[in-house]
C-alpha cells in the first residue's frame, strides 16, 4: 500500500496494520528518512513539492515491481510533502518477508528508486535563502545497480 500525504506517520501503527495477527512473516525491515541538519548552513526547514497523480501512480508501480522481484508478504510506502523541519519524518518504507535478505533488498531497492524516480523536489530554507536540492550522481548509481 502506498500513501502520499502531508500528515506525519506513525511507524508502529503502520507496522501493526501490516503484521498484526500474521504468523507467516519472519523478517520486517523498515526505513525511515528524516530531515537532518546540514553541515554547513543552519537548516530552518525543507519543503517537498510533488506531482499529484504521477507520484501515486509511480509509487504503486514500483511497489508492484518490488513484490514481483522478491517474495514479500506485505509492504508499505509513505512519502510526505509540504514543509518539514529538522527531525521530521519524510519517508517510510516497510517490507515483510519470510526471509531477511528479501526484506533488506526490497527495502533498499524501493529507497533507491524513490530517490531517483519518484517525482518529489526538495527546497531547503536556510538563513541565506532558499535552495533547490540537487540530485546526486551516487543516487543514480545506486538505482542503476538494480537493473530494469
Amino acid at each position, binding site marked *: 500500500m502506498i500513501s502520499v500525504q502531508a500528515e506525519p506517520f506513525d511507524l508502529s501503527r503502520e507496522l501493526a496494520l501490516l503484521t498484526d495477527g500474521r504468523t507467516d512473516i519472519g523478517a520486517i525491515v523498515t526505513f525511515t*528518512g528524516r530531515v537532518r541538519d546540514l553541515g554547513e548552513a543552519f537548516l530552518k526547514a525543507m519543503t*517537498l*513539492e*510533488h*506531482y499529484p*497523480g*504521477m507520484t501515486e*501512480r*509511480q509509487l504503486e508501480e514500483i511497489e508492484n515491481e518490488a513484490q514481483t522481484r522478491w517474495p514479500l508478504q506485505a509492504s508499505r510506502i509513505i*512519502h510526505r510533502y509540504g514543509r518539514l523541519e529538522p527531525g521530521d519524518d*519524510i*519517508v517510510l518504507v516497510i517490507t515483510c518477508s519470510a526471509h531477511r535478505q528479501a526484506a533488506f533488498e526490497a527495502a533498499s531497492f524501493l*529507497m533507491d528508486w*524513490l*530517490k*531517483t*524516480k*519518484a*517525482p*518529489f*523536489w*526538495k*527546497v531547503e530554507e536556510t538563513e541565506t535563502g532558499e535552495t*533547490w*536540492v*540537487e*540530485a546526486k550522481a551516487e*543516487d543514480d548509481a545506486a538505482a542503476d545497480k538494480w537493473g530494469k
Partner: protein
Amino acid sequence: MKLLYFAWMRQRIGTGEETLTKPDGMATVAELIAHLAARGPGYAAAFENPAVIKVAINQDYADFTSPIADGDEIAFFPPVTGG
C-alpha cells in the same frame, strides 16, 4: 495540451500549469521544448539546459523524442530529489 512545471522550472516560468493548443506540425517533446524556450526570458531560463530536464507524458516518464498529442498532460521538471 496541459503543461505542468515543477520545482525551479515552475519558479522561472512563473506558473505551474497552463494549457496550450498544439501547433500544427509539432510532433515531439523536443519540438515542444524549442517552442516553449522561445516564449520569453522565464521560459528560456527554465529550458536553458535541456540535458537536466525530465519529461513525463500522461504521468509516465518519456523522452525528448516521444510523440505528443493535443490531449496529453505533459510535465517538465528537474531531476527528482525525494526520498
